[in-house]
């Protein structure tokens, strides 16, 4: 038998358990050493597919109609927004957040005289049962038009990702308390719609609310001809006047306004997260409202400079949006949504105008 010379080896041979302590110590030290230096090593990830479980519906996210090498080139220096829009073949994007589908709205869109091959449509529906109803009606309407030769250049329909307020009834909708939340949600819907449909061809963006049921047929040509960065039509409503026993019109959208000293004073006294909204007795801003400047005998092309706009029918040069003008979902100078949008447009150095004598009509509930 081989004689073990080292006392250490002999010790281990006689009592193997005594080796455990030093070995453990060694392992711990090695572990500590490698862990501290290993922190800068690359992480490894699994690339196994996790998509389409039993309950998840399949999603089609692969881009279609790509060029061979997938590369496309756009020269945005050549993109223009001119008063001769139709002649210059400028693309107009009509955007409508839609919680209800009104047939009159759709019929009105179909009677617009601007060339349909230059019009793109964009809709966003809320994530509610009401949205489902609107979506089904819209689907039917779109399918009817898009099979014909005279179809729109493109139609994009989106489902909003965030949950919407359940109730959209006229009464609840205008309560001051829910205004902020409602308009913040509306702003998010508008932005989501705008920034997924705005493309490298878009010259103009027309915001047209889905409850605007009557406009002049030449709406786009008329608004374009003013050649303004942002221009808003005056939104009225037709109703039956019980006193006069006749059809009449009344102002509807009070969000087109000129800033007043009183309005600025109120704003100065507000907390950072408070907003001012028009049309409430609690907040008397004494702002001149475009709705009150309508003159039935006046020139339809009369312009007035504005500080706040409503979203009923507003034409925007696409460059203004591309520069970053969006609809704030948070109080921006104490303004929100379309009114905040007007403020942001002005902060970016553009001007905002309204046409007091150019009427579009809101649905009467």
């Amino acid at each position, binding site marked *: 038998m081989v004689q073990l010379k080292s006392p250490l080896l002999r010790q281990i041979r006689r009592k193997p358990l005594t080796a455990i302590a030093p070995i453990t110590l060694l392992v711990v030290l090695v572990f500590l050493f490698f862990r501290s230096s290993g922190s800068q090593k690359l992480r490894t990830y699994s*690339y196994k597919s996790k998509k389409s479980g039993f309950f998840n519906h399949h999603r089609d996210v692969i881009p279609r109609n790509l060029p061979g090498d*997938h*590369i496309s080139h756009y020269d945005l220096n050549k993109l223009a927004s001119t008063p001769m829009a139709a002649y210059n073949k400028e693309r107009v994007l009509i955007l409508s957040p839609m919680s209800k589908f009104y047939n009159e709205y759709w019929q009105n869109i179909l009677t617009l005289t601007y060339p349909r091959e230059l019009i793109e449509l964009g809709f966003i529906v809320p994530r509610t049962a009401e949205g489902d109803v609107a979506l089904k009606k819209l689907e039917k309407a779109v399918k009817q038009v*898009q099979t014909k030769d005279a179809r729109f*250049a493109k139609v994009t329909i989106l489902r909003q990702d965030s949950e919407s307020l359940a109730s959209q009834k006229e009464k609840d909708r205008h309560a001051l308390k829910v205004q902020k939340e409602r308009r913040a949600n509306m702003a*998010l819907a508008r932005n989501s719609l705008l920034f997924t449909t*705005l493309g490298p061809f878009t010259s103009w963006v027309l915001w047209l609310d889905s409850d605007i049921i009557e406009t002049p047929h030449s709406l786009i040509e008329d608004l374009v001809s003013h050649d303004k960065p942002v221009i808003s039509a005056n939104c009225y409503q037709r109703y039956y006047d019980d006193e006069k026993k006749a059809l009449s019109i009344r102002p509807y959208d009070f969000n087109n306004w000129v800033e007043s000293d009183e309005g600025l004073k109120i704003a100065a006294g507000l907390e950072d997260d408070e907003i001012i909204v028009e049309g409430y007795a609690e907040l008397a801003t004494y702002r001149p409202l475009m709705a009150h400047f309508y003159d039935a005998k006046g020139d339809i092309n009369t312009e007035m400079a504005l500080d706040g706009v409503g979203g009923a029918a507003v034409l925007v040069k696409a460059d203004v949006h591309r520069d970053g003008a969006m609809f704030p979902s948070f109080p921006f100078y104490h303004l929100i949504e379309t009114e905040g949008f007007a403020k942001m447009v002005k902060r970016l150095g553009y001007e905002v105008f309204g046409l007091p004598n150019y009427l579009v009509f809101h649905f009467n509930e």
Partner: protein
Amino acid sequence: MTNFSPKSRSNLWRGPVYLSLLSLGALLFFIYQKLASGRYTPNFAAHEGVEFYDLLDSVGSDDGWQREERVLFCVPLRDAEAHLSMFFGHMRNLTYPHHLIDLAFLVSDSSDDTMGALKRNLQAVQTDKDSRLHFGEIEIFEKDFGQSIGQGFSDRHGFAAQGPRRKLMARARNWLWSVSVKPQHSWVYWRDIDVETVPPTVLEDLMHHGKDVIVPNVWRPLPDWLGNQQPYDLNSWQESDGGLALANTLDEDAVIVEGYVEYATWRPHLAYLRDPYGDPEVEMELDGIGGVSILARAAVFRSGSHFPAFSFEKHAETEAFGKMCKRMGFSVIGLPHYVIWHIYEPSSDDLKHMEWMAQEEVRQEEEKKSKELYAKVWGSGFEDAKDEWEKEKNKILRNADFADRKKIVVDWSGADDFPEQPPGKLAGFDPKA
């Protein structure tokens, strides 16, 4: 009286129980469907030019690469020809599935061949034999904004130029994402072209945190004489009381920029919190962010957050983007110990110093040469005669030793005796004659 056995009872009830369980299951499944994905989905497959998207499909998850989530990769370019090949080297190495990455480039105000180089590099990747390298949709946009500010490092990073420059860059960034974000994008990644070192897993590394907006720490290597390395991106910071107080003193259109002594904000910077041995997973809440490398959910941009080209809460561009995201309730996170490295571009002071160093090197080289020459000339021209003299001196001195010589006696008496001269008459000299 009846006497049921348990077994016969269960037999009797079995049918209806199974039936009701089955219908209950079907009902639960129906409710689940309604709640989970549940909303109505129209089908426009047969209709050209009509598209439907549920934005809930592209909210983005922290393991997006396993769920076919598309990333929009945005790259603003200006006079970037020199950096493109390095950039595409990184692009080829990206581990995120390339077919899920859509590229969007904005080429603006370039005087070099940025466009040509970009197209050549793209063609090379897209026609590569390995189809796994091919990217998804690639869009190149061209838009010149006109620029009053030079593009040298010191022109760009001087204090006075910051406000207008940042607003212009903000416009460029907005033009890029607003035309390229599509409903199918779940994430948007912003990357500057001049990043030198970056992990190929950078998208996964940032995405797995599952935040709305997230940025790494950005440093740059330096020459030895400047101390090896330095924080590069000082735009990622947390708001401080000092910063807020400063903002209150400035007018509406002023833009605070970090990293300049003119604006002392005392804000904690992401860059300075780096520990080279720290855990790269560590997160830090931020208010302003830098734009070298940003991963954000596409929903952030869809919701309207953007790079303000105006003074938003006294900031512009990426820093204001951070502020706006916070304002809209999104999470804005920085990773202090996860670092990517920007290239080193010398400043004009650095350039001066480098020029001086180069000249100094030449001067020292020449000095060394002339010293050698002098040494040679002195060596041959002036022989050392000291040792020789030591020898010869003894010989000479020995000759001069009179100690052992015989003394010679000379009698000089009478030598000073002269004959008497007649008085008043000088010998042979008359000045008057």
